[in-house]
């Protein structure tokens, strides 16, 4: 019986105008997006290799250790998955004078967008009248007059509907994959295909959530006209409102101090305040040294001091003690103020992290955000990758500035002992380069589990709710 019911749902959907329209739109948009994004990827790949070539040229001729950190930096290369998912890869560059404001005004369109906006809309369009539509047509009465459990009908409606959406989605995705495969310069590795499979699985769950929302709403409404209103209302809230509000709400609930303010404060602590403390401490320590070595109280000119230090061993000791006292004073001042400034920075970091976590948690109430996190983390274009990149950069930094620089400086010093080893050009073509490797699929999957679980949870809860609503539905 189940089979018959599902087959009926699928057939009814397949023959409908809305199915055809959805299919065409989905197919065209996926194909165009994949083609345009693949072109964009190859362009950014060219740009990237050109930038690397410039750096190589520099390393050969002008590299010097004093300012190498400005030139040789860890940069994220474009990754092949950008042909489908863009995530946070837009090159906005707010830290530099020449920025690129276009992505701020017009966010990029990619597979995440297609799934989150288009597919959810399609799911609702197909499901908003699943129950009330049949009631209006009068077929619901007929169906229930047979010996059919209501649970079976809900399950069949869900299964049949989900099947009819998944079909066009997979076909469109296949079109996108063909474009990627046919692209000569887009080498997708096994992990990429694996990630794509997982993203597709996530998309199916995501679409199911919206199909179930449609079924639930349609079994709480008498007419399909009001059902579509409520469906769209819920859709607008979940898709267009909750995620966008979440960071702002989080900044309200869990405020973090302004970065600008904290950096100002840190600069004051390690600059003006440090000088003040340094002067105060050196006065104290000098007074101490003076008590120990009264000989220092004598007022001498600089040259007199020099000659006396050379001649008088006792005076030299006193002089050294005085110098040590002053040095200690400044070291103490640096340490104390540095600790204060570090504490401020750590506090800022903690609060920002708390705020980001809260914003993420709030936004996860929206299936759109769940799917966005799932897709961007799986494709190494999301927050998870930012952290991964940070770790790689740190590891590379310690090999470069630790081992390599120490070795290179020592070599140089051995060859020319008198030269300024920091400000002389040294051939650094043998320097360890930053190599970006994507995180293993297992690690990415771990990050995607939480949003996936939320989506699955939504599915279960919504199905139960849809069943409860349908069981109480008045079929007359």
């Amino acid at each position, binding site marked *: 019986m189940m089979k018959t019911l599902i087959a009926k749902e699928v057939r009814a959907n397949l023959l409908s*105008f*809305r199915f055809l*329209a*959805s299919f065409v739109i989905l197919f065209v948009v996926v194909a165009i997006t994949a083609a*345009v994004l693949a072109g*964009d990827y190859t*362009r950014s790949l060219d*740009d990237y290799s*050109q*930038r690397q070539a*410039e*750096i190589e040229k*520099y390393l050969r001729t*002008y590299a*010097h250790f004093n*300012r190498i950190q400005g*030139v040789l930096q860890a*940069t994220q290369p474009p990754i092949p998955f950008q042909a489908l998912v863009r995530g946070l890869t837009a*090159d*906005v*560059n*707010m*830290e*530099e*004078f*020449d920025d*690129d*404001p*276009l992505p701020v*005004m*017009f966010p*990029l*369109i990619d597979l995440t*967008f297609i799934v989150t*906006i288009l597919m959810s809309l399609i799911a609702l*369009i197909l499901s908003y*009248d699943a129950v009330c539509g049949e009631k209006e047509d009068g077929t619901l009465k007929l169906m229930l007059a047979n010996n059919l459990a209501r649970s079976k009908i809900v399950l069949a409606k869900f299964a049949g509907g989900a099947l009819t959406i998944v079909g066009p989605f997979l076909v469109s995705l296949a079109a996108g994959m063909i474009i990627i495969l046919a692209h000569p310069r887009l080498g997708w590795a096994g992990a990429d295909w694996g990630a794509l499979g997982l993203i597709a699985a996530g998309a199916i769950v995501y679409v199911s959530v919206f199909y179930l929302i449609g079924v639930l709403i349609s079994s709480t409404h008498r007419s*399909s*006209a009001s059902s579509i209103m409520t469906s769209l*209302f819920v859709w*607008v809230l979940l898709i*267009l*409102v909750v*995620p966008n509000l*979440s*960071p*702002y709400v*989080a*900044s*309200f609930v869990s405020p*973090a101090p*302004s970065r*600008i*303010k904290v950096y*100002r404060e840190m600069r004051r602590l390690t600059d003006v305040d440090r000088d003040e403390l340094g002067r105060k401490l050196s006065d104290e320590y000098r007074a101490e040294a003076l008590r120990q070595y009264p000989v220092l109280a004598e007022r001498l000119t600089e040259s007199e001091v020099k000659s006396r230090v050379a001649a008088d061993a006792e005076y030299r000791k006193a002089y050294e003690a005085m110098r040590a006292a002053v040095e200690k004073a400044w070291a103490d001042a640096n340490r104390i103020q540095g600790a204060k400034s570090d504490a401020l920075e750590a506090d800022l970091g903690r609060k*920002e992290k708390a705020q*980001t976590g809260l*914003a993420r948690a709030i936004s996860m109430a929206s299936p759109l*955000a769940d799917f966005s996190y799932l897709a961007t983390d799986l494709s190494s274009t999301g927050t998870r990758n930012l952290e991964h990149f940070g770790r790689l950069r740190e590891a590379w930094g310690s090999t470069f500035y630790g081992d390599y620089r120490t070795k290179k400086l020592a070599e140089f010093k051995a060859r020319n002992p008198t030269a300024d080893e920091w400000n*002389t050009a040294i051939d650094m073509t043998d320097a360890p380069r930053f190599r970006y490797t994507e995180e293993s699929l297992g690690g990415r999957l771990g990050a995607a589990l939480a949003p996936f679980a939320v989506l699955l949870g939504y599915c279960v809860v919504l199905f139960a709710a849809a069943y409860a609503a349908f069981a109480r539905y008045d079929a007359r």
Partner: protein
Amino acid sequence: MTWTIARKEILSNLLSYKFFVVLLLMVLLVATSLFIMHRDYNLRTADYQIIRPKPGEPIALLAPNPLSIFAKGLDEAMTRSFEIGSVGITVRAGQSSGNVIYSFFPAPDFLYIVRVVLSLVALLFGFDQVSREREQGTLKLVLGSSVSRAKVLAGKWLGNFLSLAVPFLLVTLLGTAVLLLDPQVRFSPGQFARLGLILFLSVLYLGFFLSLGILVSALTKRAATSIVVLLFIWALLVFIIPNLGTLLARQFVAVPPVRALSEKHQQTWTREVLLGMAKGVDRKEGIATIIRENDQLEKDYRLKFDRLVRLSRNINRVSPSASFLDAASEIAGTGIGEESRIKGDIIRYNDAVIGRILADWNVIDKDKTYPAFTYKPRSLGEIFAGGALFDTAWLVFFNIISFALAFVAFVRYDVR
């Protein structure tokens, strides 16, 4: 007669579930958006007060624009601090940089609400105007009396437009009034006029979607078909065309990535310092080389970027949603045009003071004073001449054409 039909539409809307849902959505969204963006504005203003340059410092910094509460646009990029120095222009970004979740989703400002959510609402007012009345059989009755179809359509449009625009304007004005209770938010009379223009554009934009809804409903026999078609057109106009258009433009205009520019700056600068130290050449000569090379690079970038912006704007104009976004954000003073104008002024300011900064190399900080940076936002006249007039006319054109097509479709409509 037109007015009678309009009144009937308004009354039947007032009683409908649809109207209730829409009103709820409007109040909820406009209020939350204004509240949240107002807070964002206050935070950014507080930041501005902290980093405000002391008199004499060569720093270009603009105060946040109060209209950014309605149209955030690029206000965050415009209110960064630009510090002129011998190594180039140092930029410090502001507030929201700590929380990456901001970059996942667009800012929920008033413009976003109108452009994305209320356009959908306007479609919902229009999608069943003709087909539903046919399904219910009332269309026959109306046309059975001696009313012309033109009058019926005009009445329908007017009635639905009023039931959409009046609550919208009321909610917005009420929200603005509440906003003005905060003494930190000060609008000048000119800014009030700009706000009025933005509201006018919003209403125009919503009017287009209403006509579009009526058009499609007059082309389809059933309301269920009409809504499906409309939802896809909506997704196409609001999301797909504007966002894909920008990407498409990049395929035609090759703009170097902004990272390449900053890397090149660093390379030139460190190279010249090294060469200067090694050969003991005049420092000024090295700096002249740096400035010359960077200027060339930046000029080239800006030229290409301007071309990219122009092209992507023109592609995007296929969608009235992009036209609306461009025109409204330019009028608010937070658009792409305003940003590039500010940058141009900062470059001129840089050129004006950089000579003195280099000459003052050995002067202690306290004694250095430079003229302050002043920026005069573009006047409405300039904004309109720079594209907003075209966009407004374009929106009017979209309104007229969709209404005219709706009329044609309705005249040919088979009411049986």
